[in-house]
């Protein structure tokens, strides 16, 4: 029996630069970004401030999701607004709308694979701090009373931190009754979700699987990166630059609809590309620095080429992780030049974080979605902010927009904690 082929039929990006693929693409071509200074106040006192690619005026009610579903979530969440979940819902809806996939909401075999680093965690921490502070103002010094009181206040929020609840809310909202899974492999989560969803389709279990990833990074993550001296003070991340600046967060995420090729063709869906295959490796060394001197990242890229049955010369455009951190960028550049040669003419190398920010757990999937838009529009987008590539990296970047016939593209990602991943897409 011939192996099933898996194609992308829906793209749903949610970014500070644009919501939905058409608006986003228009703004990407115009190199438009929405970088804002986020000032965090605690009880009127400025705590800290940092730049990020910020989605402003986000309202889940604008995405055409059933009102009763939204009300149900709000009731369950006892009135709390849950941005992480709402972002995921928005990406799923955008991707489904784009794919025009129709299915019975009562019963179906549609699957859902979600990638997220920390759904609800930042909001939860704030609540814990707030309630702890209120309790501290009391005269009661009993530790037991403190634990009991906070548990009573936080029990529902604590329960909802369990990631199966995210899948539950999303599946219920979109009437998904097939295979569901939540994945957390740091910045590479989206590519792991892509591979997992593909295997689910190839096994014949589901004809279509929606994958979605999102992030809404705020003060707590910022303080961690600031402490590591990894955050760009001017809000401009510059991948592979001689003068690297650091990370800049970005709001949002992306959804993709994956389908069995035959199923997609039968319903005459628009097909963006076939997902040919991926490569994955785990460095097993440090969390915040990559495994310098090892070749795990090279291994992931080569594995993707092998599973995709394509030669390295076939890759037209490569979208790098391009974190904008000197060590990570040099590690990545070495992997690229080890596989494709020093100063390779092909593939063209781009990095898209300067457009949308570092979307953390959703970054790889969002950038894969943007790469698919490049493929669809036969356009290689330039790397913004990088005036001069670090000469030690021995490779060039796309400096200006290139209109070029693109056939096969590669997304790679080297995440914190050593999750290296690569994914190859090809136009049919």
């Amino acid at each position: 029996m011939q192996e099933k082929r898996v194609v992308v039929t829906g793209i749903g990006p949610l970014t500070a630069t644009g919501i939905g693929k058409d608006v986003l693409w228009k703004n990407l071509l115009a190199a438009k970004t929405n970088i804002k200074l986020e000032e965090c106040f605690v009880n009127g006192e400025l705590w800290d401030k940092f730049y990020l690619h910020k989605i402003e005026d986000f309202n889940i009610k604008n995405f055409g999701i059933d009102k009763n579903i939204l009300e149900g979530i709000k009731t369950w969440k006892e009135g709390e607004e849950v941005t992480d979940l709402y972002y995921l819902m928005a990406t799923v809806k955008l991707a489904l709308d784009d794919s025009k996939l129709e299915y019975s909401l009562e019963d179906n075999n549609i699957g859902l694979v979600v990638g997220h680093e920390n759904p609800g965690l930042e909001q939860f921490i704030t609540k814990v701090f707030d309630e702890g502070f209120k309790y501290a103002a009391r005269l009661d010094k009993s530790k037991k009373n403190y634990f009991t009181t906070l548990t009573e206040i936080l029990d529902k929020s604590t329960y909802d931190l369990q990631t199966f609840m995210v899948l539950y809310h999303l599946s219920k909202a979109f009437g998904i009754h097939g295979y569901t899974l939540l994945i957390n492999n740091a910045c590479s989560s989206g590519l792991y979700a892509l591979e997992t969803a593909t295997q689910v389709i190839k096994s014949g279990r589901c004809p279509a699987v929606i994958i979605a990833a999102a992030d809404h990074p705020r003060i707590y993550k910022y303080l961690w990166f600031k402490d590591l001296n990894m955050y760009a003070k001017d809000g401009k991340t510059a991948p592979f630059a001689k003068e690297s600046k650091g990370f800049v967060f970005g709001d949002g995420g992306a959804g993709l609809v994956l389908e069995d090729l035959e199923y997609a063709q039968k319903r005459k869906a628009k097909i963006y590309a076939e997902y040919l295959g991926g490569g994955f490796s785990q460095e097993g060394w440090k969390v915040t620095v990559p495994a310098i001197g090892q070749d795990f990242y090279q291994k992931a890229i080569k594995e993707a080429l092998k599973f995709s049955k394509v030669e390295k010369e076939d890759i037209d455009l490569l979208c790098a992780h391009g974190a904008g951190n000197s060590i990570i960028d040099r590690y990545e550049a070495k992997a690229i030049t080890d596989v494709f040669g020093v100063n390779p003419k092909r593939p063209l190398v781009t990095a898209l974080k300067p457009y949308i920010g570092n979307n953390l757990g959703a970054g790889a999937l969002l950038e894969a979605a943007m790469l698919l838009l490049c493929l669809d529009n036969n356009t290689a987008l330039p790397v913004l902010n990088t005036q001069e590539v670090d000469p030690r990296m021995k490779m060039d970047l796309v400096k200006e927009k290139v209109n070029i016939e693109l056939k096969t593209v590669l997304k790679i990602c080297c995440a914190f904690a050593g999750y290296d991943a690569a994914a190859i897409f090809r136009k049919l």
Partner: protein
Amino acid sequence: MNGPQDIENEIRNLIAKILEIEPEKITPEARFVEDLGMDSMMALEIVAAIEKKYKVTIPEEKLTKMGSLKDALELVKEYIK
């Protein structure tokens, strides 16, 4: 078990190999970056090599503390089992 002088010489040689300089230039106090031209990638290569050789794990928050051979030795002694 190697003595302190053996470990010092081993680490000196290991660093010299990565920096591609003569071991004699690596005095205990010579600053890796300022005096010996080490960059961040080389520093991580050295950490990886030390961890592998002595089967120790140097915590990430200590990586920036390793500014000289003397610092490296102290770290290895702290974490060696």
